[in-house]
């Protein structure tokens, strides 16, 4: 392995880290307030598709913004069902994922492409020339955002309110916090970030939309959240680790000698996720009211 290989591996890892980090950090905000959204996978897929289409019309920035809008809108549906209507969060998430799988496959067929849609070069986000090669500016966003969210959750009034809503909604309600509203806002914020991650995949990174584009990244991001114990900085680290193994899998596939069959290499990110999560659990503590709708007595 030469120095150049190491650099390119690092570059791909950083790119693969972005959607995981954004999604995980958004989900941390939602889970702190008590909503567990397993529909992230579907949000990533829908916003990647919608973002790519919008980028074709209005350029990359519009694409990213539309992706954020789609993510926020889907999360709004999720949040309304699970706050005001006291729904079952898991089931809503499963519904979102099924819907996204069907809708994106349907939409791709409507575009006339057999299973994939190429984002035109003009619609892709620019990349910076660095000593490491071409880097997307979104990497910077993904590196800075967790620190901001960490500060928001640990040092501000809003963070305290979110924590109260997730930890002890009864007490927070008595203190005058509108539980449903703050949970709704937190989930929508998480959806917007996941939407940004999804649009990044199609507009700023891979330049293509397929019906399996998200490839379990929404769930790997959930695993990052579990691994981090709701600490955005640890989630960033987790996202980098998972991104690294995805990059490693891609890199091993390109080797001419083929040391292991491609199927096993593709398995690697999921296997590592499983190992890391089973190693990390035990010391992690989650909000008490996570996953439960708040009902006033």
């Amino acid at each position: 392995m030469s120095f150049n290989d190491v650099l390119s591996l690092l570059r791909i890892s950083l790119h693969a880290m972005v959607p995981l980090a954004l999604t995980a950090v958004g989900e941390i905000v939602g889970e702190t307030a008590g909503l567990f959204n397993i529909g992230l996978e579907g949000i990533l897929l829908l916003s990647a598709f919608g973002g790519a289409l919008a980028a074709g019309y209005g350029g990359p920035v519009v694409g990213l913004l539309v992706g954020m809008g789609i993510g926020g809108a889907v999360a709004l549906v999720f949040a309304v069902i699970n706050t005001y209507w006291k729904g079952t969060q898991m089931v809503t998430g499963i519904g979102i994922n099924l819907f996204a799988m069907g809708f994106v496959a349907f939409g791709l067929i409507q575009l006339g492409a057999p299973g994939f849609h190429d984002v035109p070069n003009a619609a892709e986000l620019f990349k910076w020339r660095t000593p490491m090669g071409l880097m997307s500016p979104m990497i910077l966003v993904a590196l800075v955002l967790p620190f901001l969210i960490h500060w928001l959750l640990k040092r501000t009034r809003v963070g305290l309110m979110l924590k109260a809503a997730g930890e002890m909604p009864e007490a927070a309600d008595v203190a005058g916090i509108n539980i449903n509203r703050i949970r709704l806002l937190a989930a929508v914020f998480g959806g917007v970030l996941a939407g940004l991650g999804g649009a990044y995949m199609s507009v700023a990174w891979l330049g293509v939309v397929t019906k399996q584009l998200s490839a379990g990244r929404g769930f790997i991001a959930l695993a990052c959240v579990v691994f981090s114990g709701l600490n955005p900085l640890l989630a960033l680290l987790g996202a980098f680790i998972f991104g690294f193994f995805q990059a490693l899998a891609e890199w091993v596939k390109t080797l001419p000698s083929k040391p292991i069959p491609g199927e096993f290499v593709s398995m690697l990110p999921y296997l590592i996720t499983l190992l890391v999560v089973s190693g990390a659990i035990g010391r992690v503590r989650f909000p008490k009211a996570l996953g439960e709708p708040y009902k006033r007595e």
Partner: protein
Amino acid sequence: MSRSEGTMQSRLLRGAHRTLTGLHPALESLLAAVVGLLVGAILMSIYGFDPWKAYMGLVKGAFGGSYEIASSLSRATPLILTALTFSICLRAGMFNIGAEGQMYMGGIASVLVAYFVLPPGLHQIVGLIFAAFAGAVWGIVPALLKVTRGVSEVISTIMFNWIARWLALYLAIYVVVDPRRPEKTLSIPVSARFPVLVPRTDLSYAIFVSIAFALVIYFLLWHTAIGYEVRAAGLNPTAARYGGIRSKRTMLLSFILGGLGAGLAGATIVMGLPPTYAIYGGGGLPQLLNMGFDGMAVAMVGRNHPIGILIAAVFFGGLNAGGRVMQFYGAKPVPLEMVRVVMGAIVLVMSIPELIRLFPAIKKQGEKLIGWMRRMSRRGEKEGAA
């Protein structure tokens, strides 16, 4: 109104209410199905299709004749089993998203019967046992991780799905591959195939495996002590623990039962679905794909009850079979993928508890909104006057 009339009226009302609440589960599933189909119709009209024509094609393709009904039932066969996987674990209080992967492993394991020569009857049973065992093994690992390490079963089962997908692809392409046709696995020998039930259709005797498993699960969960423990642990884990129920045991048991079901689902597809009787590794496991995920929708609409699941599976089997007809029907046919959009919308609606009560709530919110708009416009007028 006299007093006796008044009491009679209230009694009637109470009776009607009781009937309605008794019907609640079935009504809510029906309502969710209607809303799901409506969402599909709206999307279709946005994309310039004629939803009415599409649904006519779908219904004709699903229940238009004996051939269509048979093919709907044949699509329902694996869905019953994967739906049971999800609902057994949900009854025990856990979300088992892993039916998909467990089904892949079951399907691959059932291909192994191609290496044996056995009399018909015994051959099918051996295949079913292989598949059920493989599914259960794949299901028990997430359960063990949950019990020993506290890993969320949602994340571990999803990771296991992906691992199973790549492992099944590897096995189908390199291990149990047909040496003469490398794009597919060995075909199941004739002695191990489930005979076709209705001639010239793809409905085979495999459907009885699904029905039997549903009845066994019904008996087990509602008429035995173990089943009671599983359901009690799901309803209220704390109370169950005080009642002396070992929650770890019920957890493992529900995942094993679920894995058995999903494994059998793989076997019914490989051994009981004409004309291939093999898995196509080259095409990315097309017959098996998404059957586990669709099963979750079936479980939800079937209200996590084995009998409800049997009915819901026929509905979803009809959607799949009819969708195949719909994509060739009319001047502008609708792609099959629309069916999954409808399924997703149905599940989304099913997650709202006491759906029927929402209608008055929505009306109230609407009235509030109208009132607010009126006030705003009045305020605007006042400001304009000032």
